[in-house]
């Protein structure tokens, strides 16, 4: 792989995914009410218990106020001005890729994730979501052979209601927080993944989310369950078209790992960050949480956040099972006027539970980057360990990096370590590279990529390369 070609390739390029596909869209009226929720539920032919769950969430949400403690600023969101459901119209359900709306396929081509190509070349099963409805699911049969269920959330509700009912809200209850509660009331689709006992999922599972219709809030719901001794690696990648209005994305991701199970969840997020003046862009307010319910289980979050106008998320792990392990590896970039308030929560409940946090924050332009992390060791967590490392890199003089580590320890046998550093891209390093013939821009990219290496090495290979490219795109013009 060559960073130099990446730079040349991306130099001077606008947000690459800023196009709108003209799909015929089926939408519900603007705004939120019990009627709208009932309509969504009816359109999706959901069982009564799920509608009831949504309505309870909605009623609870009506009593909540939008939180304001985070270190970001944005215009108030008018929740009655959002369209909560938009599905591309399709005549019938799809048996193969050939039947997928050609416009949809063309859009994926533009995104560089042609399903046909993915299917043929990469062996990655992609559950592609265009505005709330899953349009094509591949590799299903191969997964079915080993008993893995990987499908859209709607399909899971229809085909595996007992599993959905058992685990939905078991990690992020509908009362959890303002945005999770909103999501519980109005979520339209998402991914569902179930790995049965002792099965190692034979391929990386991957979902590309895409926000397409104007003014459509996207409320995805992802649920991944790994039974005893099962393991899975899951990648979520995101892009959104360029628009002037800010768009709200309030997703919920729940992971459940039972005894000896392992879940690795990787996110490469490059949603539209707004233009150089700070106009437009996605608000990414997401609740992600994993529960290490069983002994010796492990949940690992890896995130590369280069997009969104505002990123506000704390993928966390509840370490309930004894000897369970939680990991969080993060690269967050704030360029131009982007704001990121992100970090993790590690809640130690079981004995000898361990957690590792590695956060790399890069700020450039007017970007503001905040690491906010909570390490909580409960009384029961005998012998718990945490190691936290927070590094910030500043490029330029207008940007900022902030760190808010919270540590609560109730058990004296716990060991908690916190390391933090803030540095600037160093003139000496730049000169050293340039003296060797490497351009200033490429040198910066190289130094920043080096800074992120600890996190990138946690990503599956092909996504690590994608992450590097995204990073280079985000840093364009930060030098000189």
């Amino acid at each position, binding site marked *: 792989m060559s960073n*130099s070609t990446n730079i040349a390739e991306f130099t001077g390029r606008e947000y690459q995914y800023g196009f709108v596909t003209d799909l015929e869209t089926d939408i519900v009226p603007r705004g939120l009410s019990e009627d709208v929720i009932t309509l969504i539920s009816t359109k999706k032919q959901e069982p009564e218990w799920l509608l009831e769950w949504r309505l309870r969430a909605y009623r609870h949400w009506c009593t909540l106020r939008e939180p304001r403690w985070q270190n970001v600023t944005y215009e108030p969101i008018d929740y009655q001005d959002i369209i909560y459901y938009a599905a591309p119209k399709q005549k019938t359900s799809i048996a193969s890729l050939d039947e997928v709306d050609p416009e949809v396929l063309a859009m994926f081509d533009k995104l560089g994730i042609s399903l046909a190509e993915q299917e043929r070349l990469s062996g990655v099963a992609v559950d592609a979501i265009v505005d709330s409805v899953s349009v094509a699911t591949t590799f299903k049969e191969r997964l079915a052979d080993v008993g893995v269920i990987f499908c859209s959330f709607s399909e899971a509700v229809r085909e595996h209601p007992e599993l959905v009912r058992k685990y939905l809200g078991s990690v992020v209850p509908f009362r959890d927080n303002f945005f999770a509660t909103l999501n519980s009331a109005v979520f339209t689709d998402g991914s569902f993944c179930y790995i049965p006992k002792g099965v190692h999922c034979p391929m990386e599972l991957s979902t590309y989310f895409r926000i397409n219709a104007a003014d459509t809030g996207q409320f995805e719901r992802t649920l991944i369950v790994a039974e005893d001794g099962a393991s899975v690696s899951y990648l979520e990648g995101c892009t959104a078209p360029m628009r002037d209005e800010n768009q709200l994305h309030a997703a919920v991701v729940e992971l459940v790992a039972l005894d000896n199970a392992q879940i690795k969840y990787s996110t490469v997020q490059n949603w539209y960050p707004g233009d150089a003046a700070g106009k437009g862009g996605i608000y990414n307010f997401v609740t992600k949480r994993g529960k290490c319910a069983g002994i010796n289980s492990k949940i690992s979050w890896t995130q590369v956040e280069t997009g969104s106008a505002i990123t506000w998320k704390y993928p966390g792990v509840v370490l309930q099972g004894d000897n369970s392990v939680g990991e969080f590896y993060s690269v967050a970039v704030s360029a131009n006027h982007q704001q990121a308030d992100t970090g993790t929560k590690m809640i130690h409940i079981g004995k000898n539970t361990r957690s590792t946090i590695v956060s790399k924050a890069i700020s450039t332009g007017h970007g503001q980057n905040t690491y906010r992390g909570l390490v909580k060791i409960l009384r029961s967590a005998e012998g718990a360990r945490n190691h936290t490392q927070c590094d910030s890199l500043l490029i330029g003089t207008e940007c900022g990096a902030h760190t808010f580590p919270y540590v609560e320890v109730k058990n004296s046998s716990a060991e908690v370590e916190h390391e933090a550093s803030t540095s600037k891209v160093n003139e000496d390093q730049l000169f050293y590279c340039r003296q060797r013939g490497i351009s200033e821009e490429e040198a910066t990219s190289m130094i920043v990529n080096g800074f992120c290496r600890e996190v990138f090495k946690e990503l599956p290979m092909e996504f690590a390369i994608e992450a590097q490219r995204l990073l280079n795109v985000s840093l364009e013009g930060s030098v000189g």
Partner: protein
Amino acid sequence: MLEIEDLHASVGDTEILRGLDLTVNPGEVHAIMGPNGSGKSTLAHVLAGRGNFDVTGQVHYDGHDLLVMSPEERAIAGVFLAFQHPIEIPGVGSLYFLRTALNSIRRGHSLDEVGPVEFLKLIEDKMALVEMDQSFMSRSVNEGFSGGEVKRNEILQMAVLEPSLAILDETDSGLDIDALRVVASGVNALRNEKRAMLVITHHQRLLDYIVPDRVHVLAAGRIVRVGGKELAISLEEHGYVDLGETARPDQPATIGTAT
């Protein structure tokens, strides 16, 4: 090949180079010696294009007006600086760094880039030249390198990039005698009739191994003595105190010590 005329360089109000003249022809090795603070490293950095100096005067190099060029343009034109204090770049693999540098320079000459496999072959030969350990390949640039390793890495980079003008800034500092021998033999292997070298040093010791064609003594920002190898030996015996009237009285020259 390299013609320096009336070169002045200052940082703020402090003038460090005060009208330096120097001519180096292809294939020649010139040693620049001088006491601390005489401007030796400044000369190296000014030639390499470091931005934090105010510079006046003329530097012609291979038909280029060197002073108007960016550091990377100078590198592409064949100027190489072996740093006195090479910097660490955490997380950036040494092999990757060096291949990127080589390909940047090759692109500058409209040559095809060298692929990873081809590069691996190339570097193995060059590594043998400076007795560099295989583990070098997987390590980050200069990170956790010993004093000897960073200097050998500089010479290794020089061997790979094949510059036409190599400036070695205090390459002997911090080296024990064995490491010095390795580094010097690496440098000697790279001597040829086209490549010019500017060897900056405090000590005559290095010049036992890298025998210069000319020795220049720099004091207070000017060349005050020029001679052959024997000049270095006389300096070793008498120190820099006896540099004549050309040394500035307000900045007394001191006896050279390793830094």
